[in-house]
């Protein structure tokens, strides 16, 4: 007898939890911003540094968010702002994660006095209000995006150090780790193959949300003049320029303000969803 083809239902395709709803919007927004950041020089409506029209014009079809005090198109400058905010955020978080992982991993793994010393360093750094510390460091090194970046990395790494240390300690005690040692695995192997993969979840959640926080902090530092130099179209300094004209020409500050809000919201949406799906409790904060 010939086999009768039984139609099998296709495996139900369910989107993973973290890709639904607001999180999806968030990911799309971030994706869009990234694309803009990378490609805007190719299709930019105006030169962000050049005067393209009468000063202080309100929003119009020609200039979607009007022009600023020097006659530059505000919308174009806002788009170009992604080229500062996003890369800075990524570099800061990646650096902080790497440094934090190394230090936290070492501390958790070896324990003893190494742990004690490193954790004291972490405690002391975390005892400072992050913004104040970043402000003080940037002011000392001299205003500029590069120094602001260094300051932010110095402020952020302790969080990841603590996170990773907690994870390492938790995993270290599991039986399969003992078994791995028993069969002769080196400590580095154990760390790499067993401990790190378990630790990445909370790091991922925190990192996503922290990307948004770095964008906020960069803007805050630029707002008080410690970040990007003029005429660079950074969102925080644009708000500072617009604050003077406080809202008789509201578009100058509103455009970058909304941009920051959308970016940080997007990161928060994604981070929230990741946290819900991985069921991570916020630790170390």
């Amino acid at each position, binding site marked *: 007898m010939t086999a009768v083809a039984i139609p099998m239902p296709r495996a139900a395709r369910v989107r993973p939890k973290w890709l639904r709803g607001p999180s999806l919007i968030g990911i799309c927004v971030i994706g869009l911003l990234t694309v803009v950041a990378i490609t805007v020089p190719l299709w930019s409506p105006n030169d962000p540094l050049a005067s393209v029209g009468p000063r202080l014009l309100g929003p119009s079809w020609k200039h979607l968010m009007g022009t600023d005090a020097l006659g530059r198109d505000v919308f174009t400058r806002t788009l170009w702002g992604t080229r500062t905010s996003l890369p800075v955020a990524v570099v800061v978080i990646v650096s902080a994660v790497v440094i934090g992982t190394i230090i936290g991993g070492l501390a958790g793994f070896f324990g003893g006095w190494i742990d004690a010393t490193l954790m*004291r360093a972490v*405690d*002391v*750094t975390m*005892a*400072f*209000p*992050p*913004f*104040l*510390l970043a*402000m*003080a*460091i940037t*002011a*000392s*090194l*001299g205003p500029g995006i590069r120094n602001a970046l260094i300051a932010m990395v110095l402020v952020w790494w302790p969080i990841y150090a603590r996170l990773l240390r907690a994870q390492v300690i938790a995993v270290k005690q599991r039986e399969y780790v003992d078994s791995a040692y028993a069969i002769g695995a080196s400590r580095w192997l154990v760390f790499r193959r067993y401990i790190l993969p378990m630790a990445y979840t909370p790091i991922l959640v925190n990192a996503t949300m922290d990307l*948004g926080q770095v964008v*906020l902090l960069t*803007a*805050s530092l630029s*707002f*008080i*003049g*410690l970040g990007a130099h003029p005429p660079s179209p950074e969102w*925080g300094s644009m*708000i500072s320029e617009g*604050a003077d004209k*406080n*809202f008789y020409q*509201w578009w100058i*500050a509103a455009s970058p*303000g909304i941009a*920051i*809000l959308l970016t*940080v*919201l997007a990161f*928060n*949406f994604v981070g*929230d969803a990741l946290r819900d799906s991985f069921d991570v409790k916020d630790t170390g*904060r």
Partner: protein
Amino acid sequence: MPLLLLGIATIVFIVSRLTPADPLVSIVGERNLTNPVVVAAAKHQWGLDQSVFVQYLKYMQHLLQGDLGTSFSTRQPVVHDLSQRLPATMELTIVALVFGTGLGIALGILAARKRNTIIDHVARFFALIGSSMPNFWAGLLFLYIFYNRFHWLPGPGRLAARAKPPGHITGFFTIDSLLHGDFTTFKDSVLHLVLPASVLAWGVIGIVSRLVRASLLDEFSTEYVKVARAMGLRERTVVNAHALRNALLPTITIVGFLFAYLITQAVLVERIFSWPGVGSYAVTSSVKLDYPAIIGVTVLVGFAFLLTNLITDIVYAFADPRIRLS
């Protein structure tokens, strides 16, 4: 903890000495920088002519005696500057903390009870904006809407320009004016508090409401809640008398963190609202590279953080019977 404070002070000292700029300018004035006699006298007077190590020792010694040095820009002892400005920041921060936490808890309860309805989504969105919006921009926005445009609330400052501050008892204009029976000043100070405290409170609502919602939802899935509901207790009783007590524990834990978070957030908000507090002092000193002032503020705030953490631990121990009994 004292070791931690020592660490804090040392780090701040190092950071402030990293600077390539010379504070002497604000002391002697630009014209005098070329006059070696004047420069030498100033350096001696301000202790800048000794080696960095000696300066550090002197600084630690003074610190232990409670002397934070003299600010380069105001020429007053830093302790004096800080004590003048601390009540302003405290008033703002405490009001923001109380309202933010209160509203945050209420909103969190609402969101948890109406889970997955439109109310829940709106509440969560509102909270999320509080965590995502740059607060200096929010301050500008609020000023524009409520002061510039509609004149519903007064502008920057703690009091109207011509108003005399109430006699100093606590330094909190609200409390002091009440203690003096001066209701006009009380109303004035309260109105001036509304906008900056709202900006700060929004951030707190963002954190607290999401935490309360998550904790409550956790509690809702526990056995005892199921039993309570099965027994037919009213929902309100279930929530208020049973679930809330446990759900609020994490919130209590973070009150210390919230307070520290608020002090940080207050820095820029104080600037926008011309609030003469520690935050705006921190910004001005940082930008002017006024080391004693920077060190003073950071040590003070670091100390405050540690203190609030300690208090939180104690409060938590009281609130959670499991810890007490263990």
